[in-house]
């Protein structure tokens, strides 16, 4: 997945990320087990491109985002940002790089300080950027608001005065304030109304074209990811099950989990019969997490081999990786 001469195109490369959370029980809070929230995640994102990270709730998407931003300490693995290995960086070493990587959160209300005006919230980033002159900050602030499609006079108002879509625009303005080159969008549109979602998607695309941004777009909505992303990683229980270009994922999915996800999308064209879903929810067996393939208890093509052996994440085509024996044989 990585070759050194391509490194210039790669803005972010993540190798074998692992994060286990302890389960504590009893009075003494002894560790009784581990939740493998992220269990060997690898992918890379090209400069100026968008990678989609899809999966159902609890599969570890957001944990991956927090690990990349070093908001959580990782247990194992490497994070290489612009050729620089930041995985071992301390808080202090990380600080100069923080403004390079930003995040836009799902809930734009929860992520804006209700006691600060919008202007103050966005300006905070400008101060961090080291713009000391008040007028310079003011000019830049107005530019930022214009970029995200807000009127400059809205800077004196408070977050509660805005609608969800506008708040998300403010969240994006705040992320942009420190001039990042990489933005993680963590479900940025799922809390918005349908007619507003398209506005935010278009805004993200426009900003990418103007500023050459790279995105990691986290979502559970395959339609959005298919529209917006160049490459897609499908996550299940802390592991990437399949990684390929968006076209490959949709046209030529190999992993049974990817296929069941695709079958579950209610299509917006009328009367597309829902295929019988491959997942048997009730067959879910958490002991499956212990060894072998994590997906096997729900899998329609499970073989004895899936029980015993750790399935490797391997190349099955040009830029196409999957974690399934059967997929490799094809």
């Amino acid at each position, binding site marked *: 997945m990585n070759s050194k001469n391509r490194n210039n195109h790669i803005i972010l490369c993540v190798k074998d990320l692992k994060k286990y959370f302890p389960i504590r029980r009893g009075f003494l809070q002894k560790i009784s087990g581990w939740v493998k929230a992220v269990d060997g995640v690898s992918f890379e994102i090209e400069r100026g491109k968008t990678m989609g990270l899809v999966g*159902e*709730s609890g599969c570890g998407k957001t944990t991956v985002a927090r690990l990349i931003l070093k908001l959580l300490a990782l247990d194992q693995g490497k994070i290489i940002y612009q050729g620089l290995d930041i995985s071992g960086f301390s808080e202090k070493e990380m600080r100069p790089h923080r403004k390079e990587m930003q995040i836009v959160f799902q809930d734009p209300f929860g992520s804006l300080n209700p006691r600060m005006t919008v202007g103050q919230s966005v300006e905070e980033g400008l101060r961090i950027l080291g713009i000391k002159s008040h007028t310079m900050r003011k000019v830049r602030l107005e530019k930022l608001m214009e970029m995200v499609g807000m009127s400059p006079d809205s800077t004196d108002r408070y977050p509660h005065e805005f*609608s969800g*879509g*506008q708040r998300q625009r403010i969240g994006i303005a705040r992320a942009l304030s420190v001039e990042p080159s990489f933005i993680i969008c963590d479900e940025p549109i799922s809390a918005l*109304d*349908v*007619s*507003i*979602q*398209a*506005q935010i*998607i*278009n805004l993200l*695309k426009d900003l990418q074209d103007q500023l050459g941004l790279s995105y990691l777009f986290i979502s*559970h*909505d*395959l*339609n*959005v990811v*298919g*529209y*917006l992303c160049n490459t897609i990683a499908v996550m299940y229980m802390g592991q990437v099950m399949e990684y390929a270009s*968006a*076209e490959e994922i*949709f046209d030529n999915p190999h992993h049974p989990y990817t296929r*069941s*996800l695709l*079958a*579950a*999308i*209610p*299509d*917006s*064209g*009328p*009367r*597309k019969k*829902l295929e*019988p*879903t491959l*997942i048997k*929810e*009730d067959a*879910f067996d958490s002991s499956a997490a212990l060894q072998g393939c994590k997906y096997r208890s729900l899998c329609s093509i499970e073989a004895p081999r899936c029980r015993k052996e750790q399935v490797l994440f391997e190349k099955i085509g040009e830029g196409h990786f999957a974690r399934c024996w059967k997929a490799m044989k094809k």
Partner: protein
Amino acid sequence: MTQDKQPMADDNRLISVQDLKVYFRSGHACARAVDGVSFEVRKKETVCIVGESGCGKTVSALSILGLVTTPPGEIIDGRIVFAGQNLLELSEKEMQKIRGNHIAMVFQEPLTSLNPVFTIGNQISEAVRIHKKIGAESLREKCIRLLKDVGIPAPEQRLEDYPHQLSGGQRQRVMIAMALACDPDLIIADEPTTALDVTVQAQILELFGAIQKKQSMSILYITHDLGVVAAIADRVYVMYAGMIAEQGNTEQIFRNARHPYTQGLLASLPSLSKRGKRLYNIPGSVPNPAYKPAGCPFHPRCTHKAPSCSTEYPKMCDYGQGHLARCPILFQDKGHHT
């Protein structure tokens, strides 16, 4: 030209809501959440009401069951005719006989609508106990059968479980089992899959389809997700800011939308096939129900607006075969004559 004149086989009609108006007052402001809404559900039919947050879809559904909190809510006008009687004129006691028994509801968030301190079995049997005289043993059997019907494995053991011991999908199945408990004629499902993962959503939608086929009941399904609508609906009502913007069967709505709002919504849906193209987006945002624009509530966001749109409330225009849209401007453009 108005929908009231729409000829309809009366015998096939299960419930019809006529010109419903529900307002919410707080201080001097008055939010006209539902402002003259008419719709009907026929026997064995799945009807979807689709719209964005605050468009009045949930309030419409709650008024059917008499669950609008008063105050601040108030049903100002309208009729809800079910089995020959106007539900709005019934006393609370008479309403209780209908609620759960003839019309049942499935809510969006199963964890908040299930009682955490009672077992699943207890909660499912509650509805049956209230509406039917039934012995303890046959009640237990009925609960087990209901859980089996909604696809919960090992129902005998599940009866003793508490809601927190079940997954989100299973909780929603339990909610559906509760709704089915008295073999209702109509199930109102208010965004039952919004809180669920896509694969679980697909299972629940399938379950609704299977139940309907088996028990020949009607479903009024409320959602904001056009994908879900396309998958399950026979007929669709598109709501915007307290009004029905468009109604028709699934084919008419998705292939031949006649209201600018419906057209905009459909055009703004992202999908793989639209890659590289810019998504259409409806400008502006949903109006606050307390400060709705005069005339057509959609006109500030509309690309087809004419001067009359800001003054006149739009009339329902009939495109035939049950397809109606509340936009006289597009109706004239297409050269339809009334």
